[in-house]
């Protein structure tokens, strides 16, 4: 029996439909992307020139902290969960997610978490100001009172992520259409399966570390307080045991997205499917044994330092395999360059640049010079912005016609791409230079020797920000009045999602498809 969505607000409140929930995740993450972007622009405006002009150091630290937290937990992660919600059931030929009610709950607790986090900006003492890595004891003994709200917000986000992951794993393992063996699954599904396991493994660790903070702050324990016999370095070990897999949580689904898009526009099957699966698994495994490369300067014994250096360098191998596979997929294809393809190609190039700087950072002695400078800021923005965020944008352009049954405006999409591409490079490339020249990160003011590049970076940031307005406009215009799209949308794309109508009916695959 086919029936459509309920009417009005309750449709969204009570929905258990994977497509509705996917859309809500995506809109939510876009809102957070804009909010986090505004924080970033405050930072870049203050850094436009040396001296203190716009904000005081205290508030500047709140901005860097909130920017990081909102982008990581509010923009990137929910966006991928939104894509998973929309696409995984359709890609494996399932009628919905395995646990639809839990799905509703994992989305709806997020707005509460982020309202709580954002409300700290208006509290006495201000928002969290200790960096998104919240190192103790700056985040415990020396934190503003709002830290308690931050801790609860993190707990809620963690619960949401864990529920989302359980759902994704259950869907992928139990609800595949007959004939859809594991090694036939689209790569996006594979990368998400692995990501979901990573999430289940490390989100409890994050919950643990913030709970220890809570105990230190309110219940007289001294986990991280040296004066009480505790250990501030313990905090960093626990945090990065979560934090390093976390960065792969933000990039593995991106690998999946790009592995869907490049074959479509190269008109050639993905090169080395099996090796892609193995490479993703190796990256996931390695991500658990490299955490201390974020801590090369804390004074770990030399043997530990060497172990983490070697393990980190090893990650370059499976990551390289992926890049080589993408390039070989393009090789001798018949390529066209629609917007999703442009974003994906930029992904491959710029993510590789981020990978190169990552390899440099892995060299422990050299890291003594790079650590906590703008070189690191450049590195992780190169893997996260043209990495995670470009892949999310590429995915949106790629599947939007499937979602809403209408085609986006290609010219506007391309303009968006070029503005974003240029803006991003103007913003982040000079950060390599100032970092190498000695500018520490997280400072509101700097010596005049860094002035030129900071000014350039700030200009780029505003350009990049403005480009996203175009994106929003394009998406809204498409939904309202884009040209109707065909079921296939692109030329002979692979995958079950292209076998259903555009827009995808409210319920797809109520009868499982046959996979050959």
């Amino acid at each position, binding site marked *: 029996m086919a029936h459509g969505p309920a009417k009005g607000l309750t449709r969204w409140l009570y929905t258990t439909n994977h497509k509705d929930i996917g859309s809500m995740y995506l809109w939510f993450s876009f809102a957070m992307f804009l909010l986090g972007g505004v924080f970033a622009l405050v930072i870049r405006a203050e850094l436009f020139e*040396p001296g*203190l002009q716009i904000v005081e150091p205290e508030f500047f*630290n709140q901005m860097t902290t909130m920017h990081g937290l909102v982008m990581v937990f509010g923009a990137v992660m929910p966006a991928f969960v939104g894509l998973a919600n929309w696409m995984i059931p359709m890609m494996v030929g399932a009628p919905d997610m395995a646990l639809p009610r839990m799905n509703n709950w994992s989305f709806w607790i997020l707005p509460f978490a982020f309202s709580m986090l954002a409300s700290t900006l208006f509290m*006495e003492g*201000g928002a969290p*100001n*200790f960096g998104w890595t919240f190192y103790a*004891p*700056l985040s415990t003994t020396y934190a*503003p009172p709002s830290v308690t709200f931050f801790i609860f917000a993190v707990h809620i986000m963690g619960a949401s992520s864990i529920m989302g992951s359980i759902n994704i794993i259950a869907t992928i393992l139990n609800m595949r259409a007959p004939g859809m063996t594991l090694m036939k699954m689209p790569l996006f599904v594979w990368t998400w399966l692995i990501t979901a396991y990573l999430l289940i493994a490390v989100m409890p660790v994050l919950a643990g570390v913030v709970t220890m903070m809570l105990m230190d702050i309110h219940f007289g324990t001294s986990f991280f307080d*040296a*004066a009480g016999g*505790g250990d*501030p*370095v313990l905090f960093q070990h626990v945090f990065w045991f979560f934090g390093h897999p976390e960065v792969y949580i933000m990039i593995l689904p991106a690998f999946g997205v790009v592995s869907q898009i490049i074959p479509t526009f*190269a*008109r*050639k099957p*993905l*090169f*080395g*499917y*099996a090796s892609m699966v193995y490479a993703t698994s190796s990256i996931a495994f390695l991500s658990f044994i490299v955490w201390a490369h974020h801590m090369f*300067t*804390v*004074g770990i014994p030399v043997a530990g330092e*060497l172990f983490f*250096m070697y393990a980190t*360098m090893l990650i370059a*191998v499976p990551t390289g*395999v992926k890049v*080589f596979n993408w*390039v070989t*997929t393009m090789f*001798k*294809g*018949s*390529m*066209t360059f629609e917007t999703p393809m442009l974003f994906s*190609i930029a992904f491959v*190039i710029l993510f590789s*640049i981020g990978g190169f700087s990552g390899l*440099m950072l892995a*060299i*422990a*002695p*050299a890291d*003594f*010079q790079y*650590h*906590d*400078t703008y070189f690191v800021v450049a590195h992780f923005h190169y893997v996260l912005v043209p990495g995670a965020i470009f892949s999310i944008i590429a995915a949106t352009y790629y599947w939007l016609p499937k979602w809403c049954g209408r085609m986006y405006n290609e010219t506007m999409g391309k303009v968006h791409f070029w503005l974003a591409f240029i803006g991003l490079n103007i913003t982040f490339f000079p950060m*390599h230079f100032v970092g190498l*020249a*000695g500018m*520490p*990160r997280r400072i509101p*003011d700097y*010596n005049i020797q860094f002035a*030129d590049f900071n000014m350039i970076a700030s200009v780029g940031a505003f350009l990049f920000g403005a480009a996203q307005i175009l994106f929003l406009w394009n998406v809204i215009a498409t939904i309202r009045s884009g040209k109707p799209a065909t079921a296939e949308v692109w030329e002979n794309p692979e995958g079950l999602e292209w076998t259903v109508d555009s827009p995808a009916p409210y319920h797809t695959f109520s009868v499982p498809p046959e996979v050959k």
Partner: protein
Amino acid sequence: MLKRAQRLFAWLLGPAVLMMSHQSLADEVEHWGVNMTQGVTQMSQEIYGLHMNIFWWCVGIGVVVFGIMFYTMIVHRKANGAKASNFHESTKLEIIWTVAPFLILIIMAVPATKTLVKIYDTSEADLDILITGYQWKWKYDYIAEDVAFFSSLSTPADQIYNRAPKGPNYLLEVDEPLVIPTKKKVRFLITANDVIHAWWVPDFAVKKDAIPGFVNESWTYVEEPGIYRGQCAELCGKDHGFMPIVVKAVPEAEYLEWISAKQADAVALKALTEKTFTFDELYTKGEEVYAKNCAACHMANGEGVPGVFPGLKGSAVALGPINTHNDVVVNGVPGTAMQAFGGQLSEVDVAAVVTYERNAWGNNMGDHVQPIDVLKLKQGK
């Protein structure tokens, strides 16, 4: 199509070629400050070498990979009538591009390991200096010589708030630099009093976290006399960007002279504890001490930062019993950002700053403290 690519190239290369015709590229790099410093120690130069080495490997790999990519994007496009092949597997290729990077990594790991082991060898130092990070200054303790002092930012607020032109060492200058002898192995013992800081001097390639409850070790051996500047590299709160490091390396004779002068100063300062000061002397001195040590948190106008650092203007302590006030300043408030200043300031300075706080910003208590009172408090009398 090719024409378009050519135009793009001209666009990219044009400025670079123009630049080079005026000046050598190296000068340009120097002028813009785009690369890591080579520094002034053997270790910093080795690290620079490792950095350039891995950088060129990355460039090489990038040129190959991106080269193939751009070639295929230009040649294998549908618009040029390219027909898609269907190959999608090759175990041979996969093995090649797994093994080749692995070999490159081994080539890189060997020298990196050697350098790392040298950096970790802190044995047989000629001189030990204990460095302690405080919210937002550094303390340098010459353990064997019994000399200790604080070093904090000396850039005036007027420059920071754009009311005066900024000097060349803007934010990289301190009231009292760390002084070390050249041609000696100096060992740094690094710790912190409150939150985590990191002591970083790029020219020495020394960056080590200063962690409360831990003592980290690092070392340097400087050949040439000079002034070397660095900054705190770990977020440590509000003024993290304002706690620079300045190291002055001098020949040994000059260093010894400086140490004896410091020791003599300390003796003279001790003697002042016995002296009785007038209110005005204390108040004037107190204003200086306050600006240097307290204003970062309690603010120059005494109003603090609401919710984070309490104001002292009209505060219960500043208007309460004088002994409590002394006690807060000397012993701090454990578990908060209020440090114990008893070990940081001389008795004279404590007496002066308390006197100042009790009488500034309309706190007209009219009373004052003598250094000898502070000494008694410290000795528990």
